[in-house]
């Protein structure tokens, strides 16, 4: 029990640093790909510190409730993952965090935020089934949903779940808000809806959103690293490769329109895992 609490606290403290560094690395890589020098590696930390020093302004107090909900549930999902808990539960907790973000966008009176929230719903419709089916795929290979089972298993997941892995790459792109799936709130400034769902978040709340984004990034990369969890290094290598892949794809693709996004995300997000699961059943 004590060690569980210790792991939880350690995760909560360490993950932001990891996430922030990864975000900084992302910006550095992107800028190099675009022929620029780019900001320093720890720029995201500078940004968050500066945001924290700004005034706390909201359009409605409900916004504050929802952004804290988004943060706390996403952090909880990461803690549950670090503790090796049930993967399906982690997916549902993460989903509730997304629901808080969407509700927060709807609760402001800004038309930009509301359209952004509606787009975010479309996006959730696209990747949520993928995550649940990925969890089901893990169950079918390992006989259990627990992350700790994956860590202690002798067989790696990737050979049995290659299509689910590809789907998780798509989920990574969505969660990092990178093209071609940056429909709701792009990671960069090129958003015709001002900042979409995050338009009315500023100052400390925007810092909180950024922090949550870091936790989410660590969580999704952690999920990707599960696919070769027999030793430490292959998993990390896969996660690093996926991260680099996301950055490159972002820079070579343009944003999809919502109908294209839904179509492609459903084909990839539902079709690929379903196919993988069906193949597993056939072999079973």
């Amino acid at each position, binding site marked *: 029990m004590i060690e569980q609490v210790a792991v939880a606290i350690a995760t909560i403290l360490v993950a932001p640093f990891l996430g922030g560094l990864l975000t900084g690395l992302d910006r550095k890589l992107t800028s190099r790909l675009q022929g620029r020098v780019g900001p320093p590696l720890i720029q995201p930390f500078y940004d968050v510190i500066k945001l924290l020093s700004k*005034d*706390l*302004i*909201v*359009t*409605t*107090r*409900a916004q504050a*409730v929802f*952004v*804290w*909900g988004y943060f706390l*549930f996403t952090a*909880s999902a990461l803690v549950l993952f670090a*503790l090796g*808990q*049930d993967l*399906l*539960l982690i997916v*549902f*907790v993460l*989903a*509730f965090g*997304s*629901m*808080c973000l*969407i*509700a927060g*966008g*709807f609760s*402001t*009176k*800004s*038309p930009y935020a*509301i*359209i952004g*929230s*509606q787009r975010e*719903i479309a996006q*959730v419709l696209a990747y*949520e*089934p993928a995550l*649940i*089916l990925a969890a*089901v795929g893990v*169950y*079918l290979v390992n006989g*259990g*949903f*627990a992350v700790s*089972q994956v860590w202690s298993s002798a067989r790696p997941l990737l050979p049995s779940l290659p299509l689910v892995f590809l789907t998780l790459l798509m989920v990574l792109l969505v969660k990092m808000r990178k093209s071609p799936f940056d429909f709701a709130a792009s990671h960069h400034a090129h958003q015709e809806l*001002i900042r979409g769902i995050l338009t009315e978040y500023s100052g400390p709340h925007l810092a909180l959103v950024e922090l949550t984004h870091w936790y989410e990034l660590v969580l999704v990369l952690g999920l990707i690293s599960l696919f070769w969890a027999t030793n430490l290094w292959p998993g990390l290598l896969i996660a690093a490769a996926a991260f680099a892949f996301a950055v490159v794809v972002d820079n070579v693709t343009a944003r999809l329109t919502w*109908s294209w996004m839904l179509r492609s995300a459903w084909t990839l997000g*539902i079709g690929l*895992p*379903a196919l993988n*699961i*069906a193949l597993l*059943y056939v072999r*079973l």
Partner: protein
Amino acid sequence: MGESLVAIAILLPVIAGVAAYLGLPRLVRRAVVVGTGIALGAVAIALAAHERLEVDLPALGFDWSRALVALDLLLVVVIAYLAIRTRHRLAIGLAVAQLAVVAYLKLGPSSHSVVHSTFVLDRLSTTLSLIVSIVGSIICVYALRYMDEHEEHHHVSPSRQGRFFFFMLVFLGAMNGLVFANDLGWLFFFWEVTTLCSFMLIGHDGTPVAIANASRALWMNLLGGLGFAGALWLLEARGQETSLEALVGGSADASLVLLPLSLLVFAGMTKAAQMPFQSWLLGAMVAPTPVSALLHSSAMVKAGVYLVVRLAPGYRETALSDVVAFAGAFTFVVAAVLALTSSDGKRVLAYSTISNLGLIIACAGVNTSLALAAALMLILFHAVSKALLFLSVGSIEHAIGSRDIDAMEGLARRHPKLALIAAAGIISMALPPAGVLLSKWVAVEAAASAGASFKPLVTVLFAVGSAATLGFWSRWLGRLFTSPPGVPTSPVRLGSTYALTLGPLVALIAVLSLGAGVIVDSFLEPGMRLYFGAEAIEGAGIALAAGEASYPLGWLYALALVALGVPALAVAVRPARIRPAYFCGENVGGPTDDEFYTAAEQKVHVGIASSHFRALFAEERVVRWGNVVAIVLIALVFGVGYR
């Protein structure tokens, strides 16, 4: 003692209903309703203490079988008369057909097999009885104020509340009888009483729209009832005992009971408004809100899924089970997607109800002990949450004059308590520690673990439907709190009747969710063991740890603390300023804050509405194709039963 409790549970509401009908002064009627509610709740709790209870009516001396014959015939004659009065051809045809079948069954040649345990109460029955008695009573008390406002609104004079409460209370008694019945003859009687009550209550307002929708509900439910009667006839013709225990006990010859099982499952699915029969439930939303809350989310439709779940061990490992799983999962997904396209609050709730009922039926079709546990949990948690949501939408509709979700924008400013209660209801449908999501988690676990013989398509459908539900809940949750930061308008008081009914429902949800582990462990699981047999419960690792993939009770409680702590934290963090949102230029300001200045100092009005994905999911198109697939599935339900 047990027998008297059962008798009270069934007969007391009927007597109270008659008393309510007799045109008593208003205060007396209110006392009757409240008193009946309290008594019913107490009786249900007392009955729930028994793990199993059998009541043998023939042994009590009175010739109950003849009484049942008389009651049955009277009932089908009354239904036929009402159907003829609606002048709806399909309703008349089905009612007359049912009259013919029942008359032949009761008066014609038959084996008249004696069923010894007329009523059998186990955990499944008492869970539903608790829902009916406690939640149903709360709804009836709520209706006391709601119907006053309703009649004032629609200028109804003289008051028709006597008739209203008569049918509501009789319905409670019939539901209790339905879930207690083991003898299929008695079950059929109570089943059709609920059909009758539903018809009368949907058409309560007496407008042409109400009567048309009531007729549609009538014929669809009669279709199921005809199936039920057909099952009874088949069982008697084949010399089988017409009791639930015989059907699921495994002692009956499988090839002989499969078609009756198909017919009974069909009856359950029509009553639970599964596709393609969902239109009657959607049409029933014209009824006053307490009717929607009681009949069409918490109780009557639950009777339909109750029957399907109850019969599950009887069709385990047959093709019927697979078809039921598909049909349920299909309804789950399609209804969830259709809920995304609606802007009418009650319609969204109706689709959500149909969706969850589909999930329960799909769990019954998956037919492992874990899946059936999920079904039972869903029945319990969904009934409470959905009742709360319907009641709060009813209060909101009376407060703001509309039940459109977009009209509920900014409800938190003018009606803070109502908005918070509605938000609590919505959150309870999606929050991880809360009951409904917990049950959904168990359902997906059950589907995934159902073994190699099971098709993975159902799991895929569970995943897609689960994602869709997030969409419409989050949209609604947010809209409740969209309000401009102008001068706050004076908040409206909630009123004691609403506070005393809605408040306890919220508390009940909280208690049930926090105590979910305890409830499953000590209440549901022992009953399931009695029902499914000792060998079946081993795999149902819900409150137990199954290896390392356990239900992390401790961490979910921690999550619940997080969930409760969030609003507290956020409210404590007082924002330095509340500012209007950015539009596209300088805000005009003012209390409504919905205009901005554009070129040449012109004011532009900003109106915000939610998108309902109608371009992608055009309701008519989805419904049309959905019905086609659903009809094929229903045909399969019969096809696999017919040998």
